[in-house]
């Protein structure tokens, strides 16, 4: 089983996490479009960690039931008060931002879950299954 993790603590770690997700997705057997979607969702969620929580960890893991990939984004940042609201397209607390990260990431994968507690942190999982 393939598994890897990346610490997110500066800008270049966003690049590292998305590159690693693509690498592992490729090894698992995902095609070019799914690799690109996974890498892009990873970029959005890693950037959120860097921007809102300052630092965190990305865990990438091959799964078998059903076969595919799971990526977990975990941080001990400020948390999201209303995750459902934050998932909506256009919701953002950053002036000038479009609030596309969470809603866009969700459209790029097969499943996405958010657990968050204000003051404690945020845990987001994305899943993509082999066709």
């Amino acid at each position, binding site marked *: 089983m393939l598994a890897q993790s990346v610490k997110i603590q500066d*800008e*270049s770690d*966003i*690049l590292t996490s*998305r*590159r690693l997700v*693509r690498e592992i997705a490729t090894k698992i057997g995902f095609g*070019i*479009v799914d*690799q*690109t*979607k996974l*890498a*892009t969702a990873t*970029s*959005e969620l890693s*950037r959120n960690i860097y921007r809102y929580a300052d630092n965190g960890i990305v865990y990438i893991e091959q799964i078998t039931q059903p076969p595919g990939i799971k990526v977990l984004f975990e941080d001990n940042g400020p948390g999201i008060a209303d995750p459902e609201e934050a998932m909506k*397209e256009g919701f953002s607390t950053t002036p000038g931002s*479009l609030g*596309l*990260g969470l*809603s*866009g990431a969700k*459209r*790029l994968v097969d499943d996405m879950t958010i657990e968050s507690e204000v003051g404690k942190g945020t845990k987001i999982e994305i899943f993509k299954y082999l066709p």
Partner: protein
Amino acid sequence: MDRIPILKLKSCLLISIQTDLHDLIITALQEDILTEISRTGARGVLIDISALDIVDSFMARTLRDCSVMATLLGAKVVITGIRPAVAITLVDLGLDLSGIITACDIDSGFDLLESTPGVFNSGRILKRY
């Protein structure tokens, strides 16, 4: 910090993005392009991203904003070489990209700029230094 080189060809600026870039470099590139447009009087800008296997919302937004800002300075921006997988992903991401002009490769990008009055001929003459 590394900077992406901006080449000048007649009255056009030519930028080829060869590697995956992080946010600070992308933002610096946008500023550099706008500065160069106003410094040289360039009327066209071609940005080739055929080497990029990922364009996330930050990159896409910057390319779009840069196109709009360049228009305000009197220059037309053409983005060339978007890969099919990147195009499919950008549509899912949901960003409004109506502000950007694209062409499939550098050749057709230049054709597009060439057909724009003043980009390669007759228009404003480039300032010389």
